[in-house]
């Protein structure tokens, strides 16, 4: 494997006595599209700002193409940022905005003109070069911000929730465009979002962050199908989490939860009798059938049904008050609210996860 383009080593940052980053390590390969995914306040923006040089880490190192750049100011790093609110210069035209970084690099006039043209066509803003940012739509501003950052040919492009201010439809369209740009240019993208759908659609790898740490780093498939922790399972896709004690080892093993006994696939999971374990079950893999005495499953009552985003979501409540969510395509379901059900799933759909450290503030 070739040398990673960016490495973070034990990066740690504290703001006013709060640990924002707890010594994170990250290694990113050339040409990768990696997404830092997490809820607000998880430290993803701080990570990005440290990579850009807009923030200094308290300790740890930042390596860019093998060189230590920890002490370099942002203007000396070949890394550029697309800011969350675009940060377009209001007193400059579209082409002046794009040309700004090139002028600072003392490029020749002809070269600047050519690059600006290239960028304008790359982001489909031809014909807008003499407008002011205030005369552009949200999507156009977004594209201009990207063009301005790309014009200086950075090794890495950092994108801080760049689609946050756009409406849903435009956001979907821009997701494709960004992915297309990244493939076409072969530049490494580090992308920040709190939207799991965005992360799953675009990334080569996703790093899920929580409380200044990486919970899991992996491909979208890994993160979605085999979440390492209950937090990742809940944050990426919707998963039901159940806790219990192993009451019978084997494959599948049986887990005694407060709601009843359920089967869990375990090929070499190493759990012993009496161990506590935590499982995640995706809502679309939760199955249920009308309650019949003596059959396998967890007994629950339907307490809510609602239709959202093309899916029917059914809330099932166990005797102890715990709930699970099941989801189905389509709008019709024969069962009614209040009916007793048996909840079950394939053992291989119950994923064993670690419990995230409960350091919740």
């Amino acid at each position, binding site marked *: 494997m070739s040398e990673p383009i960016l490495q973070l080593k034990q990066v740690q940052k504290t703001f006013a006595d709060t640990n924002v980053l707890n010594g994170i390590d990250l290694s990113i390969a050339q040409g990768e599209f990696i997404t830092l995914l997490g809820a607000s306040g998880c430290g993803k923006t701080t990570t990005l700002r440290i990579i850009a040089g807009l923030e200094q880490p308290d300790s740890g190192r930042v390596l860019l193409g093998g060189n230590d750049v920890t002490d370099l100011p942002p*203007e000396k790093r070949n890394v550029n940022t697309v800011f969350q*609110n675009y940060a*377009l210069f209001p007193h400059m035209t579209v082409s002046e905005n794009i040309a700004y970084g090139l002028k600072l690099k003392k490029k020749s006039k002809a070269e600047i003109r050519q690059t600006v043209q290239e960028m304008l066509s790359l982001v489909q803003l031809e014909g807008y070069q003499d407008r002011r940012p205030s005369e552009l739509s949200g999507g156009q501003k977004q594209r201009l911000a990207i063009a*301005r950052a790309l014009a200086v040919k950075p090794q890495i492009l950092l994108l801080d929730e760049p689609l946050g201010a756009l409406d849903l439809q435009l956001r979907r369209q821009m997701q494709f465009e960004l992915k297309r740009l990244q493939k076409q240019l072969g530049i490494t993208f580090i992308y920040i979002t709190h939207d799991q759908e965005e992360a799953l659609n675009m990334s080569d790898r996703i790093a899920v962050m929580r409380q200044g740490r990486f919970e899991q780093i992996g491909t979208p498939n890994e993160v979605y199908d085999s979440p390492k922790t209950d937090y990742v399972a809940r944050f990426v896709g919707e998963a039901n989490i159940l806790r219990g004690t192993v009451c019978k080892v084997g494959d599948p093993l049986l887990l005694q939860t407060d709601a009843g006994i359920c089967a869990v696939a375990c090929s070499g999971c190493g759990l012993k009798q009496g161990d506590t374990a935590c499982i995640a079950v995706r809502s679309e893999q939760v199955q249920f059938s009308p309650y019949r005495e003596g059959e396998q499953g967890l007994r629950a009552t339907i307490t809510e049904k609602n239709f959202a985003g093309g899916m029917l979501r059914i809330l099932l409540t166990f005797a102890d008050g715990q709930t699970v969510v099941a989801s189905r395509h389509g709008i019709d379901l024969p069962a009614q609210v209040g009916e007793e059900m048996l909840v079950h799933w394939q053992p291989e759909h119950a994923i064993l996860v670690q419990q995230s450290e409960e350091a919740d503030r």
Partner: protein
Amino acid sequence: MKRKKIRPSHLFLALVLALMYLPILLLVIYSFNESKISSVWGGFSLKWYQQLLADEKMFEALANSILLGISSSVCAAIIGTLGAFGMSKVQSRANTAVEYLATLPIMIPEIILAMVFLAFFSLLGLPFGMTTLILGHTAFCIPYIFMLVKARLVGMDPSLTEAAKDLGASEVRVFFDITLPLITPAIASGMVLSFAMSFDDVLISLFVTGVNVNTLPILVYTQIKTGVTPEINALCTLMLAATLLLVLVSAWLGREKQHSIETKGE
């Protein structure tokens, strides 16, 4: 057909506004009065303007006032802008104290400032005249510039300067390429305001001016106090016209400012 309703609140606004303009209008009217006694209307005449234009002392005072207004607003613009910019970058306890002191001149009654300057300048042995006038006026012009620029800097999106740095600009380049163009409207309106305040000032000028340096307001003041000739009416009318021009310039600047705020982004 529905007619536009006249609200009592609009009537109130109109009445107060009319009262505000009444003395000014009367002044303008009487400046064209042929009669020397200002309570008697003696027919239309331009003779007071002719007399005024022949008055060398008036022109000298006018030149002084303009020189004073420009010098003190330029000095204040440089000191105030740099100061407001520096304070936005460096956090320090001393800033709070200096900010309080720097804005004090427009907070306290003018007479105090006037007396303080008179006493202090005599202590230093500075020759009273244009230098002391400029020093005094700069002191009360700085707050206007400082406060306007500070407000503009606070309202500025910090990611704009970060974006410039990110694209390779040094600290100095960021200031000249990004910060300065964006705060220019605030500096300009501050300077217009400063000029107007300096041009208007009687008290401080009266205390810190020398024997032979008159400003226009000092001239008007002494004339009003000593005996009124209708020549003042004409002078006042001309000054009024100058003010009108200033207000229009500042309104135009204000429009620019609004524009750049709108473009700040969502």
